[in-house]
């Protein structure tokens, strides 16, 4: 497989769950100011 394609797939593989986790974290952190 082309290395450029591998790079995209590999970083998406780990990046998507991480972004999901960060998004959930930011929602929770906002409670410090609203909760």
């Amino acid at each position: 497989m082309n290395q450029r394609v591998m790079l995209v797939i590999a970083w998406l593989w780990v990046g998507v769950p991480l972004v999901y986790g960060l998004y959930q974290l930011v929602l929770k952190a906002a409670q410090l100011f609203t909760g």
Partner: protein
Amino acid sequence: MGFLDRSRTVAPPDWNRWLVPPAALAVHLSIGQAYAWSVFKTPLEKALGLSGTQSALPFQLGIVMLGLSAALFGTVVERNGPRWAMFVSLVCFSSGFLVSAVGVLTEQYWLVVVGYGFIGGIGLGIGYISPVSTLMKWFPDRPGTATGIAIMGFGGGALIATPWSTQMLQAFGSGTGGIAKAFAVHGVVYAVFMSLGVLLVRVPAEGWRPAGWEPVAAAAHRMITTANVSARNAIRTPQFWCLWVILCFNVTAGIGILEKASPMIRDFFSNTAVPVSVGAAGGFVALLSLANMAGRIVWSSTSDLVGRKNVYRLYLGVGALMYLGIALLGDSSKLLFVVCAMVILSFYGGGFATIPAYLKDLFGTYQVGAIHGRLLTAWSTAGVLGPLIVNAIADSQKTAGKSGPALYTTSFYIMIGLLVIGFVANELVRPVNSKFHEPVGETVETGASR
């Protein structure tokens, strides 16, 4: 070992080194789930009739096994290579969940302790050190950034697992059947997720170096060696034990806040006009997690620019000042309390992420993964020490009828003392005596000769 053998993972000359960090992240984002264990605590207590102490056992054993297996198997990991290590980590971590699923389903709690804590804990330790030396061989020009990315993943693992596991328990139910199903799904999904690391990881060919990078120029800095020290010799050097003290006390200082963050902020401002609500305390915990994770990548990358010794001066010196600030300000400013705590937690994360590069500077890349594994016993010690200091003092102050900041002020002064000791230990770090160096030509790649 066939496919898993180190020789099968040697990269072709045109291999893009930026394929290696996602391989490391696939493992670290998975095993970082350990810090989200608390999601399962209450459902397990209700479903199996356990106490809080009992439901914490799998996590505690897991962290102890992390330190022990990293220390015991570090040399084997160096010899067999990162693919083998990642595969063993995958098998142990995933099967730990599957054994736990059987344990919950049959209401045999000891199986959860053995599965998640013992078997899974071995997966944590081997997985944690598996990519460290490989990353530093691929990124000799910026080892702090490279290991920072991976070790940031360990912090990020809990961020992913906490909401994911919570949603799964809501969907499956939090009875024995639901918990067992959730454990089984975790085991299978993490096995698939970690397999990317097993398939993708490569070691650089002997003599490979980044284009335009010269090791001799990098070693012009006297704190960065071009020599190599074996794991066996490293633990005989004062430098190893200085770093052990530095890591132990830096982690103790951070974990003292992290472990008790939610009740701490509520207690601290309980006597003020606007006390902190449960929801706001949850937000504080989330901000600390963010600071912990960001510190891992930001400060370890900074260490590539300013040097490892200087960045630990910052962690330990400014960390002590932040604790002093919290202790002196008391409950006069929530904002300053939160900012100081976030800075301390960013240094906690940074301390974890920078230590492999500090080891590499002092001992070379030859067996740096194994040396790192041995150093992680400092983490296990701090994991006991930090919560013990903060909880014991807060409990005794409460018994004495005190409230507010008075519950924690003594602990904070103890943390300042520990950070100052760590600062002194950092000042004592010097280049390793050449009598500990391996003879030139005997440190080819694997360290298999030892």
